[in-house]
């Protein structure tokens, strides 16, 4: 039986000639290592862990040289393999504590074998005769067996997912969402229209706005919107505007064509 992962080998990132590095094709460092081990074309119990370590490190180096973002896991594994390599190459000191290079190598070989065994098991499992695909149940069942005393059905999974989603939902809704207030152009226009009515003399824009600003945070949006609205109103002759120099205060006063009460009422009505 063809193992699943072999089917995918062709799509995997590593091609020996092309040297195309695509780390995304692998499910983590162990998957990559297993793939490299397979390329030694020997029984997994006879792979050369030293050669494997070298291949892995070379692969990672290549990936880094062409600036592929590598997850930390890959780098940690590379560092560990470099350490393993040094343990394998340098003879063990008598008083050296810790595991020998051979022990480390066999631990790695075990993990690769175990992962491969699980992949093969998965393939065999999925290729079994499956209910609903190869094997079928009675199409017209005549009763439902009730073996439970309660007469109610629910699984632990149902229970836990109900609880988890409830708690999460509730926890989220308990967060009070503060609406960030943004002055729209029409807001600003209306506010200006209300204020300008009785303005005979030059008055600073900021001065007007202060009373409309609930919090200092609104300052920027209020000034931006009302300045834009005031330019429009100048064009319509409803107000006049003056500024001494850049960043100086902006002064406003009633224009030659002021907003009468009727127009203002219309504007208020339009705003709701």
């Amino acid at each position, binding site marked *: 039986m063809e193992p699943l992962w072999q089917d995918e080998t062709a799509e995997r990132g590593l091609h020996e000639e092309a040297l195309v590095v695509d780390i995304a094709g692998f499910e983590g460092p162990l998957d990559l290592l297993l793939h490299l081990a397979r390329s030694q074309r020997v029984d997994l119990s006879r792979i050369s862990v030293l050669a494997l370590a070298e291949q892995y490190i070379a692969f990672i180096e290549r990936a880094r040289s062409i600036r592929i973002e590598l997850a930390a896991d890959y780098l940690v594994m590379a560092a560990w393999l470099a350490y393993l390599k040094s343990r394998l190459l340098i003879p063990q000191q008598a008083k050296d504590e810790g595991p020998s290079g051979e022990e480390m190598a066999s631990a790695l070989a075990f993990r690769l074998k175990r992962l491969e065994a699980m992949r093969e098991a998965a393939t065999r499992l999925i290729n079994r005769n499956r209910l609903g695909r190869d094997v*079928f149940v009675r*199409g017209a069942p*005549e009763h*439902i067996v*009730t073996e439970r005393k*309660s*007469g109610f059905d*629910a699984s632990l999974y149902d229970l836990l997912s109900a*609880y988890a989603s409830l708690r999460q939902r509730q926890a*989220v809704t308990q967060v009070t969402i503060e609406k960030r207030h943004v002055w729209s152009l029409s807001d600003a226009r209306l506010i200006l229209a209300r204020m300008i009515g009785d303005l005979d003399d030059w008055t600073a824009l900021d001065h007007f706005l202060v009373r409309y600003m609930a919090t200092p945070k609104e300052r920027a949006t209020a000034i931006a919107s009302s300045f834009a609205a005031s330019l429009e109103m100048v064009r319509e002759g409803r107000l006049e505007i003056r500024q001494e120099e850049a960043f100086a205060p902006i002064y406003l006063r009633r224009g030659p064509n002021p907003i009468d009460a009727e127009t203002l009422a219309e504007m208020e009505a339009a705003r709701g």
Partner: protein
Amino acid sequence: MAEAQKYLPGVPDEEDEIEAASFDPRLEQEAERIAEALVFASAQPVSEAYIESRLPRGADVHGIMLRLKALYAARGVNLVQVADHWAFRTAADLSFVVQTDEQEVRKLSRAALEVLSIIAYHQPVTRAEIEDIRGVQTSKGTLDVLMEAGWVRFRGRRRTPGRPVTFGTTRDFLDHFGLEELRDLPGIEELKGAGLLSGRVPSNLNIPVPTGDDELAENEDPITQLDLEELGLLTPKGEEAD
């Protein structure tokens, strides 16, 4: 015939040469098996024409069906003919076996699952606390359903004003959900790990470790017969309320 051959490994080729008139008994047997499986798996009675279309060429479908009918006649399940369709039915004299199961298994509603899970994790818990956690009122019917299922019980009364009744889960609850003890209920990390809680769990979300089944909490009083009568859950004089 060649088609049937494909399905029957081990049947020698030469037999194929014999014309349909003398149908190979082994093919006959295979045709029987196919007819059986087809009728079994179908949600509706299966027409003889359809069965024939699935049988090896040359098979005498009607003869096969009649033989199967005879074969099953004395069994617990009979093959019955409905017009020109075929179906399996429980033998008429055994219908009592199948029909005594009148109690249908009902799925718990979402609300009931939520309330049950809150009681499981937060016990001993009062109704007000359940509502507080869910953010909605709990209908009386929901708790009734859980009581009826035998999964929820009155545990005691909280020693607070109003002495509210506290709820807890039962031994049957543990049995049904395959838990050995309440402490086996997964905690926040495990719910997260299993993908039941999404990654960004709000920091204000705490999942309590439920307290043991039988012990009362410090601020709990045991529930008495009198309490039950008072709550209208038990008619006076200790008659069984159902």
